[in-house]
Structure formats: structure tokens, C-alpha cells
């Protein structure tokens, strides 16, 4: 056998960068995934003076990907001032992409495969990939495969004019059920009896916390402006409960007609943006004289059967967190901060309620005692997705960088990250200092 592998090392988070997030079809309507990811990575490179550095690896992805986004992260790295000898690859796990990318980079650092890396993600729903009408696509492929004019003509004769006006659009909904994510969450809100008022209150809190964080300059060293934007443009600093109450439920028609609770105010909007996080071994950080903000110590993933067993589509983190807590030998209350991605206010509240429910904890999680309640004053204290918006693959990076800085500001402590994802999956992690 060759030399024994080195001991597992702590993984340090040194910082992050993101561009302000924008509601789809607003200021970033014409920005491509490549452009946004490049701008974000370059901002990180500038902040940490990594020009010409060969990093261990850059990992990231986009959920809404064009065919031209082949090698998206590698192409973005090549467009920055990082050494072109920096390897990169793409991953995709819906909204879990960003945190999963961080886990992959962290694992390589921990095992000694690389010394440092960047984990990131980008998404745009404005610049959506549209395909040719499926029937037309098959005809064109037949034409290109044809060897004789007769064969080509035979293929082309199947063309019908309507194929020109019916492109293949990205589907808004779970492939298996045909329901949109919001409709799945409306079903969850019904199952867990989550009141409209509680959802609106959580949404308001997210906006108020994010507004305060911007006002306090919290994002100054976590964000670089892009296309003239300096602040997440979904943020409504003047949002009121009265305004939230006046919004009409938008996911009720198919699943809960006339009895819905999810509105555009307590659901995240479609958003464009990108984020990236710099992770490294302590040795690399010390050699570059970069302070460590926090350490990524634990992570876990889970998936639920939302199709046959009809578990809530967004309930996977409810399963992932207790598995991780058991490994880490921690209780749910042993945290100073909770960063729970807000796909919908109802989804956050369902997750919290499930952890307090003895029957769910016993039957679904196999726990004799419920996990219990969290201190809500520690939840998303600098705002989260409902206010900032949620470019799918960029949220993981946003949350990791935000939490790492919060722990650094506090000086010590422990934070829990929980992110749900389409396809019934969830990724969770613990950051410590």
C-alpha cells in the first residue's frame, strides 16, 4: 500500500461574494448564467486578491441551464483572472445545488485532495432555455441523419406550421405530479394547518430583517454590484401586514380551491442572481493571511417520497436535520442561528411544526421525543429568500457566506443551515466557530 492518507482536516470558510438578486424579467433580464457567475467569481477573486491563483477546484451549477451552458463553471472560471489551470465542474440538485457544491469542495479539502476551492451557483428564470418544438426537433435530426435527398424530403414533409409557434418550454412543475411547487406547498400548509397570518408574519420578518441588514452595511463585504444594482430588488423595506393581507392566494386553484393561504407575498418570486463561497484548509488560509470566518463541520442530505407515500414535497430537510444532529450529538436547540431557506413561509412553518410534533417525530423520524421548538428570534436574523429572492442554485452560497460572517461577528457559536429542493430533496449543514 502507498503512504497512509492524511488525517481529516477542518474546513474553513473564508468568505463569499454574490451579486444582488433581482426579480426575473427586471434588471437582469438579458444577463446569462455565464455572465452572472463570472461577475460573482471575479468579485470574490478581487476581494481576496486571488488574481493568477490556481485554486484546487471550483464547483457550482445552474438549475435552468441552456445547452450552451456546457461546462458553465469551467467557462466562467476561464473568464475570470484566476489561473486558467483552475479545474471546475458543474453539478445540479435543484435548490440544493449551492450547499451541495460547498459540501463537495469541503470534502475534498477535508480529505486533503485540494487546499482551497470555491463553491457557487447561478440561476436565471428571465433568460430561460426554450427548446424547439419537440416534433420539429425530431424532424431536423432525421434530416441531418438522412443520406439522400429523398430521405431528407420525406423527413421535411412531416413539418406542420404550428411546430414553429409551440416551443418546448421549461416546465413549471414536478414532472411526476404535474403540480407546481407552490401547489405542493399549499397541500403541505393544509396538512400541517398553517395559518395565513403566520405565513404573512414570517414574510414580513424576512423583509424587515433584510432591510435592517442592508442598512447596517452587513452585506458590504459579501456583495458586489452588478448592472447598476446594489441591493436585492425584491426587498420591500416598507412592506406591511396590511399589504400582505390584501394579496390573493395564487396556488389554490388545483389543490385547495377558494381555500388557499399561499400568496405572492409569502412565496419567493422567480429571481436571477449568483453567489460563491471561498473554502480552504486552515494552512492555506494562514499562508494567505486570510482570517477564518467559520468552519463547515457537518452536512447531511435527505429525500422524501412525495409521489407514492405523499410526503410533503418540501419536507426532506425535516428528515435530514435529525440525522445530522444524531451524528453530531447535538439537540435542535444547540444553535445560535438558524438559516432556513424560505421557499415559502408555509414550508418553513411546516418544518418547524413537524419537529415539535411527537407523532411525526415518532412515526417518520423514529424519535421517541420530538426535537422541540427553536428560538424564533434566532431564525433568519438577516433576512432570507422571501425578501432577497431565490435564484435556485445561488441560495446555498448566499446562506453559507451570510451565516459564516454572522458567526465571525459573534466571535463563537454554531449555526444550522436547512435548504429544501425540488424533487423532494433537502440539504442541511452545520457551521461552527
Amino acid at each position, binding site marked *: 500500500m502507498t503512504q497512509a492518507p492524511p488525517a481529516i482536516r477542518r474546513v474553513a470558510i473564508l468568505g463569499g461574494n454574490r451579486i444582488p438578486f433581482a426579480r426575473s424579467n427586471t434588471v437582469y433580464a438579458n444577463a446569462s448564467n455565464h455572465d452572472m457567475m463570472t461577475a460573482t467569481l471575479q468579485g470574490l477573486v478581487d476581494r481576496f486578491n486571488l488574481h493568477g491563483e490556481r485554486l484546487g477546484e471550483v464547483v457550482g451549477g445552474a438549475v435552468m441551464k441552456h445547452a450552451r451552458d456546457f461546462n458553465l463553471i469551467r467557462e466562467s472560471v476561464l473568464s475570470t483572472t484566476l489561473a486558467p489551470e483552475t479545474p471546475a465542474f458543474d453539478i445540479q440538485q435543484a435548490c440544493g445545488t449551492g450547499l451541495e457544491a460547498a459540501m463537495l469542495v469541503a470534502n475534498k479539502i477535508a480529505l486533503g485532495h485540494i487546499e482551497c476551492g470555491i463553491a457557487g451557483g447561478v440561476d436565471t428564470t428571465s433568460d430561460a432555455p426554450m427548446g424547439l418544438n419537440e416534433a420539429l426537433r425530431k424532424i431536423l435530426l432525421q434530416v441531418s441523419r438522412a443520406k439522400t435527398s429523398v430521405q431528407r424530403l420525406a423527413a421535411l414533409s412531416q413539418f406542420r406550421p404550428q411546430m414553429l409557434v409551440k416551443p418546448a418550454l421549461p416546465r413549471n412543475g414536478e414532472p411526476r405530479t404535474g403540480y407546481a411547487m407552490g401547489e405542493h406547498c399549499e397541500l403541505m400548509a393544509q396538512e400541517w394547518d398553517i*395559518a*395565513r*397570518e403566520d405565513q404573512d408574519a414570517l414574510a414580513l420578518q424576512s423583509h424587515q430583517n433584510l432591510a435592517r441588514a442592508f442598512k447596517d452595511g452587513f452585506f458590504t463585504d459579501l456583495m458586489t454590484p452588478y448592472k447598476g444594482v446594489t441591493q436585492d430588488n425584491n426587498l420591500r423595506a416598507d412592506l406591511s401586514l396590511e399589504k400582505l*393581507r*390584501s394579496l*390573493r*392566494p395564487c396556488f389554490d386553484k388545483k389543490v385547495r380551491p*377558494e381555500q*388557499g393561504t399561499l400568496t405572492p407575498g409569502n412565496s419567493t418570486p422567480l429571481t436571477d442572481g449568483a453567489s460563491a463561497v471561498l473554502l480552504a484548509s486552515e494552512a492555506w488560509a494562514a499562508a494567505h493571511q486570510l482570517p477564518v470566518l467559520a468552519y463547515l463541520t457537518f452536512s447531511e442530505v435527505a429525500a422524501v417520497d412525495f409521489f407514492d407515500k405523499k410526503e410533503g414535497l418540501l419536507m426532506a430537510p425535516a428528515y435530514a436535520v435529525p440525522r445530522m444532529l444524531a451524528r453530531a450529538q447535538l439537540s435542535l436547540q444547540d444553535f445560535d442561528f438558524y438559516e432556513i431557506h424560505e421557499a415559502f413561509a408555509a414550508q418553513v412553518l411546516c418544518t418547524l411544526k413537524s419537529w415539535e410534533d411527537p407523532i411525526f417525530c415518532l412515526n417518520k423520524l423514529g424519535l421517541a421525543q420530538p426535537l422541540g421548538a427553536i428560538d424564533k428570534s434566532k431564525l433568519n436574523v438577516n433576512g432570507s429568500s422571501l425578501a432577497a429572492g431565490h435564484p435556485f442554485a445561488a441560495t446555498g452560497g448566499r446562506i453559507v457566506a451570510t451565516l459564516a460572517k454572522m458567526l465571525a461577528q459573534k466571535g463563537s457559536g454554531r449555526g444550522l443551515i436547512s435548504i429544501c429542493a425540488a424533487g423532494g430533496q433537502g440539504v442541511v449543514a452545520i457551521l461552527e466557530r
Partner: protein
Amino acid sequence: MAVLQASRKRPATVESLEPVVYVRPAVTLDALSMAAYTQVCAGTPDQGVPLLYPQMLTFPLAMAYFASSYCPWPAMGTVHLANHVRQHTPIHAGDVLRVEMQTGQLLAHDKGQVFNLEFRVLKDDQLVWEATQTLLRLGVKNPVGPDYASALNNDHPLSLQSSFVADGGIGRRYGRISGDLNPIHLSALSARIFGFRRAIAHGMWTQARALSAMLPRHAIAQAQVHVEFKTPLFLPARPTLWTTRAIEGDLSHNALFEARNAKGDKPHLRASLSYNLA
């Protein structure tokens, strides 16, 4: 016809209403009639016998009373001010029910005399459903009785839950199944004769339509709903339903709701609802 002839009576002050009881000793709950009612009120069959449906059975009794000499005032021009329904146990199609109406309390109102009609529905001598219909006879000077007081305030903030359609013909369709063919509900032309610029919806329809969206899509056991009618709902319209469940109440599920205009700033009715699941 008798009701129209009784319009010859004039609004007058009375000391009290003659205590009379009108009875329909055996009424069978007809599934077809209930289905027609459910359809007009946008309910679903899994909600069972609609909460307000038994009040349909009392309508002939109320009309007989208005036509009689026991009632000092005509039916025409009486405003339905409020309604309080209590369901004690669920009932089912095919049940044979005894339906009773008796005169109730008099209350004084700025605009005239308020009087209650008390309805009771019994099955095998057991009270299964009861209601108090609060009516206002306009124009009566010096009304008698304790002051009428609204039981519902608008202190609780409500959230927009849904909107529904009140089309131009809903007054005719609900009039046919309820028997309440008051011309003010039937068409703009007939409504204008009685001072309304367009036909207005029956308050009991608006309430039933709102309840279809308020009640769960399965049977309930005990329930009570108290409604106060506010501004007229001129047809056609797209009213909005505003609700909250963040309130205390007598039963396991409690809610407040208002059916408001399309803009959401003027209530057509305000109500409180409580129910236990079956």
C-alpha cells in the same frame, strides 16, 4: 299572492308580537332539492347537508306568518338584518323533520322596529338545528324593546382568501330554489320599482356562497354561524372573501369572514363561524 295582498298593511308600532307557532310536522329532506341548492351555492356534495339548507324549509312558514293577521307588517320592505344558525347534529337526505317557526323578541333600531323569528328543526323530537332570523321593519316610529346591538365588530384584521362570481341571474336561480321571489332580487327592472338601481343578491345566498369556501370539504358535526348583512350586493359583481381563523371561539374551529365588494373596502356581510369536525 297572499304576501302581495298583505302589502296593504301599513308600518305601525306594536307593543309586542302575538306569540304564534307555525309548524310543518313532517318534511322529508329531499336529496334533489339539496343538490340544486348545493349547486347554486357552489358547495360540494362531500360537505353533506349544507349548514344553511334547513332555513329553506322554514321559508313557507315565514311567508304564511307575514300573510296572516298575526303579523302587523307586510313582508315587502322588511330588511334581513342578521341571522344566527346553530347546528346541533348533522342531518341527512331522507330524514323526516319537524320544522317550527315562532315569533321572537322585539328590539329598537334607529331606522325602525327589529323583530326576531325563531326557527327550530327537530328529528324524532330531538332539536337538530335552530336559527334566529333578525328582521328590520323600516319606518316604524318609536320602536319598542331593548336597543338592537351588532354582535360583530371589525376589530380583527382579515386577509383576502378568494373571490367569487355573483352573476346577473343568481337572484333568479336562488329565488327559484328558495321560494324567495322578492322582485328586488330578480332583475334590474323589477328591482327599480322598489328603489334599487339593479337587482341585489339574496343575503342568504351570499352567506351560503361564502360558507362553501369557509367550511372544510367534508362533513361537520356541531356548527354555528352568525351573520350581519351590510351593504347590498348589486348584480352582477365579483365579491371578495376576507377571513381570519386567528380567533377564540366555542368550538374547535373558529373563523371570522366578510364578503366584500371587488375592491375589498366595503362589506356586504360580516360573520363569525364555529364548527367541530365530524
